[in-house]
């Protein structure tokens, strides 16, 4: 008979029960923890044991694994990534059955192969060396303490009791060659170090979080700037364009020709950068119909539904040229600048809106002298080209035709720029030397050439919609579909002039990866999941059934496992239930102040910590004492050593004083909104 090696010894008497009670107390499951502790400690007095075979151990382990698996799916679907802490909280329930069976079995330990299915197959083949067993009581003890930490009861008792429990277990591992006093002294040193360390960790975490937020704000949150667009004119090498899907566009039917969605337009150009004078966005009043904003008085003839991902809660959105109104949106507010860029404020993530538009009717602000200006360094080139192409003396329509024809006949589309030139010579090179470039070259040159010929023109950027996805049943727009074109002011209105050769879409497609369909499918699933998670009703009545199909294999698996485990299933498993997840300091008076500030229109930015927000508000409002109130709140919320009741009282007084001072003045436009909302509520 092969000798059995048991890894890890069993937990010292009563430590397992104590850890369960500790967990129950910290997480609010004390009522459950008490009988569980009694059950696990009772074998010290109860003499009978179950004779449990390897196969039955395997079955119990499988059931625990299956419960864990289903729990993970369930909790993650409800709570998202934060669900990991809920799972941590209830893990002692999940593994209790296995540990209980081990405690009441004659063997008193569990074979490693019961926990790892791969070992079972190896064991079946080779008996020597694999016959190892493990006593689960100490890992379960550790799990209970970890799960207790998820209760997040920020009192000193957590630290004290967890230290005591760990010390009680370590006492059993104490080597006999040292005196007990030395052990106690070293343990004391460790505990003191740990106490200092945990305070240091809190501060470290806070400071890292602050600096990360700053870094994110600085570098990561890039979005379309309505006042400035940096082109790739002057970049050397081949442009690398991403295949990521950035927009999803639903139309009433197939598009006869590619649809341009504009994000912004610019009027000033110099050295590869298009810009505008800092423009004031004007707030668009919302319509009576919720989620609707009228941009133009005329009614749109066509309509598209657009879904885009917003990485911040405010951003410029792509719209068809000549958009008259936006509807079916959950935006908070909509602004527009004089160059037609529309900025939407909404919750970050996927946003959907429907735009009605009149093709050809672009109601941007009328041109001014800025729309005719050419920077000195380019003027001679474009005047020369205008002369060469005999644009002078023609009427504007003829000029446009000539320009479009010449660009189409004499220029080629290319994503590659091989040679390096002095700054500002790239356009010269494009116009007179190699005559090839990408859409930014064409659009920039067209704008400046039209201006040279006396026609006001602007540079517009956005996307081209031309790829229909059969998988999704709508149009998709990738990052590589970003495009630039020209707006020319002809006959009292703005007209789109796109001189980029029509081959550009094909040329850009050469960037497509062979795995693109796979990525597209993953992107689509992610998108559907995000929308499903946000509780949004999908418009196709049958389309959400596919999610149910995903459940089919899981249900089959569950049935199969249960069918094979008839006997074990009768053992029963206590329903875990979910903790109310309370945390200390929840009743802090500061939250009233935060509500008041938000009501007055002082919005907290995405990712902005309370500290950073209050620092900012300290300058923006006349309210005094915000920082002091925040410090009191932090002490009340996080300092386990503080006198909670007294702090709470002081904080409440401070907040009352700030609110009573009346120095938190509402921001005007927000006020208008709330009034509007109130009126809507009344009506």
């Amino acid at each position: 008979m092969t000798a059995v090696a048991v890894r890890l010894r069993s937990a010292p008497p009563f430590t397992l029960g104590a850890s369960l009670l500790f967990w129950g107390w910290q997480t609010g499951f004390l009522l459950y923890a008490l009988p569980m502790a009694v059950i696990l400690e009772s074998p010290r007095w109860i003499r009978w044991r179950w004779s449990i075979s390897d196969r039955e151990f395997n079955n119990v382990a499988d059931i625990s694994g299956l419960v864990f698996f289903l729990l993970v799916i369930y909790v993650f679907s409800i709570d998202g990534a934060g669900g990991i802490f809920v799972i941590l909280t209830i893990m002692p329930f999940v593994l209790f059955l296995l540990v209980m069976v081990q405690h009441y079995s004659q063997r008193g330990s569990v074979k490693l192969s019961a926990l790892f299915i791969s070992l079972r197959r190896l064991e079946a083949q080779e008996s020597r060396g694999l016959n190892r067993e493990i006593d689960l009581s100490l890992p379960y003890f550790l799990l209970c303490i970890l799960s207790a930490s998820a209760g997040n009861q920020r009192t000193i008792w957590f630290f004290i009791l967890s230290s005591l429990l760990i010390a009680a277990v370590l006492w059993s591992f104490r080597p006999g060659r040292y005196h007990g006093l030395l052990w106690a002294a070293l343990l004391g040193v460790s505990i003191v170090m740990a106490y200092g360390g945990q305070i240091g960790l809190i501060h470290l975490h806070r400071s890292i979080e602050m600096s990360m937020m700053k870094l994110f704000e600085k570098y990561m949150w890039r979005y379309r700037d309505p006042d400035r667009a940096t082109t790739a004119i002057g970049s050397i090498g081949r442009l690398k364009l991403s295949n990521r899907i950035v927009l999803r566009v639903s139309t009433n039917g197939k598009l006869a020709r590619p649809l341009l969605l504009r994000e912004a337009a610019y009027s000033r150009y110099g050295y590869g950068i298009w810009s505008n004078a800092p423009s004031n966005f004007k707030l668009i009043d919302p319509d009576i119909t919720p989620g609707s904003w009228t941009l133009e008085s005329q009614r749109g003839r066509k309509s598209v539904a657009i879904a885009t991902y917003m990485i911040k809660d405010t951003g410029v959105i792509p719209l068809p040229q000549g958009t008259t109104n936006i509807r079916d949106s959950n935006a908070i507010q909509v602004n527009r600048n004089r160059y037609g860029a529309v900025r939407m404020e909404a919750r970050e993530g996927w946003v959907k809106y429907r735009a009605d538009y009149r093709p050809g009717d672009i109601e941007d602000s009328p041109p001014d002298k800025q729309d005719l200006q050419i920077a000195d360094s380019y003027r001679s080139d474009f005047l020369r080209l205008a002369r060469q192409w005999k644009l002078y003396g023609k009427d504007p329509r003829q000029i446009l035709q000539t320009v479009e024809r010449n660009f189409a006949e004499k220029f080629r589309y290319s994503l590659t720029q091989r040679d390096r030139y002095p700054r500002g010579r790239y356009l010269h090179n494009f116009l007179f030397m190699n005559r090839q470039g990408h859409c930014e070259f064409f659009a920039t040159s067209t704008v400046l050439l039209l201006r040279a010929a006396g026609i006001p023109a602007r540079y517009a950027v956005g996307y081209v919609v031309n790829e229909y996805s059969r998988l999704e049943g709508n149009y998709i727009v990738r990052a590589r579909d970003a495009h630039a074109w020209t707006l020319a002011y002809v006959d009292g209105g703005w007209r789109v002039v796109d001189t980029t050769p029509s081959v550009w879409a094909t040329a850009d497609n050469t960037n497509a990866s062979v795995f693109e369909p796979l990525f597209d499918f993953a992107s689509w699933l992610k998108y559907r999941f995000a929308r499903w998670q946000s509780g949004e009703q999908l418009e196709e009545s049958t389309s959400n059934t596919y999610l149910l199909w995903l459940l089919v294999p899981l249900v089959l698996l569950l049935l199969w496992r249960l069918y094979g485990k008839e006997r074990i299933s009768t053992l029963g498993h206590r329903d875990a239930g979910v903790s109310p997840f309370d945390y200390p300091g929840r009743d802090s008076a500061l939250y009233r102040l935060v509500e008041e500030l938000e009501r007055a229109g002082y919005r907290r930015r995405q990712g902005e910590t309370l500290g950073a927000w209050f620092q900012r508000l300290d300058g923006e409002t006349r309210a005094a004492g915000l920082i002091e109130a925040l410090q009191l709140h932090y002490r009340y919320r996080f300092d386990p050593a503080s006198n909670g009741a007294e702090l709470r009282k002081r904080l409440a007084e401070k907040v009352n004083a700030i609110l009573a001072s009346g120095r938190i003045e509402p921001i005007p436009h927000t006020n208008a909104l709330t009034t509007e909302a109130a009126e809507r509520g009344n009506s």
Partner: protein
Amino acid sequence: MRKLLYRNFRLVHRLSERLRRRLTPGGSLVFGGIIASGIFGIDTQQTLAFQIFTITASLMLVAVLCTATFRCRLRLQRLLPDYATAGQPLKYRIRVENRSPVLQQDLLLMDELETRFPEYAEFATARDPHDEKRNWFDRMVGYPRLVSQLRHRRGGSIPARPIPPVPAFDRSDLEIEFTPFRRGYLRFSGASIARPDPLGLFRALRRFQADASLLILPHTYRVPRLQLPGSRKYQEGGMTLVSSVGDSQEFMSLRDYQPGDPMRAIHWPSYAKRGKPVVKEFQDEFFVRQGLVLDTFVENASLAQFEEAVSVAASFQLAVQQQDALLDLMFVEDRSYRYTSGRGLGSTANMLEVLACVQPCRDQPFSCLEDLLMGHAGEISGLILILLDWDEKRRDLVRRLRAVGTPVVTFRISAGEDAPAPSTVDREPLITLPAGRVQEYLDAVDWDNLQL
């Protein structure tokens, strides 16, 4: 990519070995606590796991600091047996001598077998018999295969043993037992003595260099004494050093002395009678000489089959009557080998040593074995062939041997369950033994009615 994985595996393996040696069971628990609480405690606002992290990490830090120095005046001596057998428990002793004036207790002895990492090429091309049982991920990534290779190279796993308390200036013997799981040499590289820190979490190590090697003989099976048919054969040139020589002492005739004849061959009465030296002439040497042939050509066969073949060869080496017959062990490795035992030549132990070290042949053609056997067929009374396959060239070899009148018993080590019934004997005696169930099939053979 695989190379990168391989390098990482080496790193991971070394790290895990180091942790295994350094951490006590309590230390493993605390280390697990550090990892788990580190993961869950990364956000100090969400849980209090960071407090568990600081407690466990501080305990470990203090424990590590306490093991910074470890001076011990101890001496180790390993007392190994001459041989051991693969698959059989091996017991040996280590003598621990305390040269200090204090009692040494709570020490742990970790004897080590040399661990030589396989090179990347070996790792990439090696086949592992356990691979089929593993899941696809393990098969694809290959870490369990590397662990299995290392285990095989090491040849055994020596458990750490607590050293009984050793009084001052005294010594104590410690018996260690483990089971070597492969034949060949086990190389002991050194031994370490571990002392736990006062908290009982981390071990201080002191290593003693003590290189030694131990030959592990192949595992053997129970086989009956096999009487091969066949007559005595003339051994050209006679046999030197054989204890009782065939018929060589049988007097045949007298002849005139020729230079070089030994003095003891002179027939003195005839010398005296004739006045010139006359020597005795003896009959030529005739012996029963049997051959044991091991097929080392692992072409389609697995290493497990080869190991079984070696074990079966070792079993017959032990079983064949050797008092009045010679037994030739023949195989091809980097070249052809023939070792003769019996009648005082080469002991069985020598032959088992040879078998303990035999390796599969990868760079010689099968015809080498054919040449070896056909070259000696005339002097061999009967052959036991242990083959790894039963393909055309092997059948042909058996046919040719029988054609020259050499009786042959053929054993074929098959891969698995597809073996025919145990006692199935073809017209040419062929016994198929599936790897893993050799003893069961050997027991089922009807040896008495085996038609040779």
